[in-house]
């Protein structure tokens, strides 16, 4: 029997790591760290989880430790947020290029300066080109589900890429919600033992992490790109297998009340649940509005997105990240490029808001929808819109 318990998202993710029976956890335990490794350290110390817990001196060292651990064939987990992910950045690339299926939970946070430990998606977007599979969560249940799912998909022999599970710092990481925890035997049925095919073994010597001179580097990167894009099939299959065992089904692109919707709001992360309240309200008033939660960020679900928005007239994208001097928010930019080749494409209006822990209320999303439709109709001189900023914003021009 599964049980329903009250957990903050950090602890829900820690439960998933425990039930996945990881072998090694390497994490830097100090700010911007979250309760995920705190709870895991407790589990290891009191015997609930038989794993090596390695508290390291930095996030750079955390991911470096994970490389060695994964190469030795151990199921490996780490977690960080915000500045910590930035410090880890160099080794984040190494992990995916060496094809180590490490799982990492990121409680998304803003980047300094000014110094901030509060939530937004800037950290996730700064590592979007590293060939880690990246998924976003809307609530604490999904923090559990996606963390468990991440091991199964990343470790699949035809994938062998690391997976980042993103959930919003504070808005989820520190907030308590009901979470359904499955039985261990259900988890064991879903998640086979980790069998890394290239384990370091003295009886079968091999070199991991050799150098790649100019005459092969390009070939290695194309091989990596082809393999990474191919992982999308296993990602989708993994969602189905998860649903078949646990009863909760996920998709790369998740529609909410999108039937015949002329306007679609696209969001990543927990703010989608606030925006859904606005969609409900507007639908009740007869307005033709729906919402899409973009769960899978990398590899980007181009085909699924085009299919989901093909009948819409206007798309309004909400980003919790800014790309300075660029097209506004990374999600909006990606969606625009994904739709460019469509014979008839919807208008796309981008909003940036919710940075550095700024809340987005129902009223704010009402503004986003109303203003977004107005811009789609009349046009605007500004490249993107903002929400929640005090003072009239001008000067965001091409």
């Amino acid at each position, binding site marked *: 029997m599964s049980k329903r318990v009250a957990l903050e998202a950090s602890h829900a993710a820690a439960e998933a790591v425990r039930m996945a029976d990881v072998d090694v956890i390497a994490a830097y335990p100090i700010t911007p760290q979250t309760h995920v490794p705190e709870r895991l350290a407790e589990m290891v110390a009191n015997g609930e989880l038989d794993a090596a817990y390695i508290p390291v001196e930095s996030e750079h060292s955390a991911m470096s430790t994970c490389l060695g651990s994964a190469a030795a064939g151990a199921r490996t987990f780490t977690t960080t947020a915000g500045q910590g992910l930035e410090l880890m950045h160099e080794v984040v690339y190494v992990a995916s*290029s*060496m094809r180590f299926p490490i799982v990492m939970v990121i409680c998304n946070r803003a980047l300094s300066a000014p110094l901030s430990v509060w939530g937004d998606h800037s950290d996730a977007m700064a590592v979007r080109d590293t060939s880690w599979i990246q998924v976003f969560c809307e609530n604490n249940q999904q923090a559990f589900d996606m963390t468990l799912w991440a091991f199964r998909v990343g470790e699949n022999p035809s994938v062998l890429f690391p997976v980042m599970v993103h959930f919003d710092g504070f808005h989820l990481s520190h907030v308590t919600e009901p979470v359904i925890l499955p039985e261990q035997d259900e988890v064991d049925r879903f998640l086979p033992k980790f069998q890394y095919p*290239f384990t370091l073994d003295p009886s079968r010597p*091999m*070199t991991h992490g*050799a150098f790649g001179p100019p005459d092969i580097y390009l070939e*290695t990167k194309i*091989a990596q790109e082809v393999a990474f894009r191919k992982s999308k099939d296993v990602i989708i299959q993994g969602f189905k297998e998860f649903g078949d065992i646990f009863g909760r089904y996920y998709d790369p692109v998740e529609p909410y009340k999108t039937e015949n919707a002329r306007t679609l709001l696209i969001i990543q992360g927990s703010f989608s649940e606030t925006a859904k309240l606005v969609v409900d309200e507007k639908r009740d008033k007869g307005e033709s509005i729906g919402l899409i939660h973009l769960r899978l960020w990398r590899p980007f679900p181009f085909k699924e997105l085009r299919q989901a928005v093909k009948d819409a007239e206007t798309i309004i994208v909400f980003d919790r990240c800014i790309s300075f001097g660029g097209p506004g928010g990374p999600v909006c930019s990606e969606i625009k490029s994904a739709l460019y080749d469509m014979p008839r494409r919807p208008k796309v209006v981008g909003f940036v808001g919710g940075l550095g822990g700024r809340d987005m209320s129902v009223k704010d999303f009402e503004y986003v929808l109303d203003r977004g439709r107005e811009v789609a109709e009349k046009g605007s001189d500004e490249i993107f819109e903002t929400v929640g900023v005090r003072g009239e914003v001008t000067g965001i021009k091409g």
Partner: protein
Amino acid sequence: MTEKRLKTGPDFTWGDMEIGNIVTEAGNAALRRTGDWRSQRPVVDREKCNKCGLCWLYCPDAAIEPLKDGYYEPDLFYCKGCGICASVCPKEAITMIEEEEV
């Protein structure tokens, strides 16, 4: 034993890459010509050499080969010309010569 083969050259495509670019063969770095990185090459003066073997011991890349007659010679296919052998030679029997003068 199968012949060692370096994964490079015109016949080698992206599809031939091992997952994670692992190298499954030990010691195949010796097949890669790195001698062309060199700006200076070590030249051994057999008149001065007393066969002590320090050059062979100190070479960081195993590019000094012991010969049957007891002398030592650099493997110019692999030697990158760092000059450590010349520096440690107690008899000053190894001289670094500019490649362009060879």
